[in-house]
């Protein structure tokens, strides 16, 4: 960052841990399952319904309890619902791509639509994790049945032994029309999931 710009930058408020008591009261059912608009409606987003079935593990491989997770993804046609894309013909009126769940146990299932490939990318979901003991950590998750993984610039930026840690595996099941993908997210230690720095990058 060049010095002239830095002069006008305000010092940021420090991020702090969410702690163990993020209010369950603030849970929003509309953000916990973004695979459909509402259980009482037959219209909803286009695409392949999917369940991301995951465990968040600490460095002892114990489940990390009390974790808040946020998801961000493109729609089935690979378009993100951002201000830059306002008016894009492939936006899906029923899909904003932002989800949030809190898991008491550390295991969770998140229902969504399988994202399409954005320009130059393999299909992926951005995952933000908040929990006691940490502030905010972010990464992206991919899918094992996508040939585009081989050319994805984010996966390519990682050593080969780390790439697989971000790839969810189809677990062979389709449940109630949802394709099930599974992954373990290891917060620390052996087998640690690669996390990315969206403050310094």
């Amino acid at each position: 960052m060049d010095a002239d710009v830095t002069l006008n930058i305000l010092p940021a408020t420090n991020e702090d841990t969410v702690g163990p008591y993020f209010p369950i009261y603030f849970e929003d059912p509309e953000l916990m399952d973004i695979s459909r608009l509402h259980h009482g409606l037959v219209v909803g987003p286009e695409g392949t319904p999917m369940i991301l079935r995951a465990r968040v593990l600490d460095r002892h491989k114990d489940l990390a309890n009390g974790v808040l997770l946020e998801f961000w993804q493109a729609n089935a046609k690979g378009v993100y619902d951002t201000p830059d894309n306002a008016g894009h013909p492939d936006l899906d009126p029923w899909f904003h791509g932002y989800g949030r769940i809190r898991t008491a146990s550390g295991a969770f299932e998140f229902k969504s639509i399988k994202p399409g490939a954005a320009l130059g990318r393999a299909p992926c979901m951005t995952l933000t994790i908040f929990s006691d003991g940490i502030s905010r950590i972010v990464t992206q998750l991919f899918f094992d049945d996508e040939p585009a993984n081989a050319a994805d610039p984010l996966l390519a930026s990682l050593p080969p032994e780390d790439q697989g840690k971000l790839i969810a595996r189809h677990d062979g099941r389709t449940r109630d029309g949802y394709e099930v993908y599974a992954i373990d997210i290891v917060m620390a230690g052996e087998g640690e999931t690669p996390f990315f720095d969206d403050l310094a990058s």
Partner: protein
Amino acid sequence: MVTRDQGRLLQIGPTDNTSDQRTPRQRLRLIPEAARASFVPYAPARAMIRPNETDMTRIAPNRPRAQGQPIEVSGTLRSETGRPVAGALLEVWSANSFGRYTHSEDGSGLQLDPNFLGLGRIITDEAGRYAFWTISPGAYLARPDIGRWRPKHIHISVTGGSSRLITQMYFPREENNASDPMAILMGDGFVRNVGQEYATPDRDVDQGYRFDIVVGGRNATFFE
């Protein structure tokens, strides 16, 4: 501190067992430019707010005040470039004056207050301003084995456009501030997370605390 040649190495909070169990040991990876924009969530505007959530000093307008000192917390929400973040959702939670959360997983056994929920939501106005009333929270013993207390603090989660931050506001001159693991990690920057006192002679609270929030990093400004 922003550096561009490598990502941050996250630090483990002293005396914080959970931090030791959950803090990534590897340095965070830098995001290649081709993937950078995809890391910026854009949260839909949400206003799931019930009336009177900005007054956390009572559970409903016609109910008595909770025990403890009623306070006002106010400030502005801005990005690093100084742009006000309007229409952002602030989710606020804290312990009651005895240090007890109403959260179903708080097993501390500390006293509940039937007039205090400790939950509130506020939307920032066009200038990025916010204000809420609550009860000054109690400190609580976080590590009985070593006698470490969590100092008084109010949790604030900010979601607005491409801004995302979870932080805590601390209180000035609290003796437990110095031993708090997260405060220690903040170092000299801890002062930015401490509310600044102001008088509230014309309002029905005892004390005001100004807490201006600046969301750091490029995410907050990505779609400016």
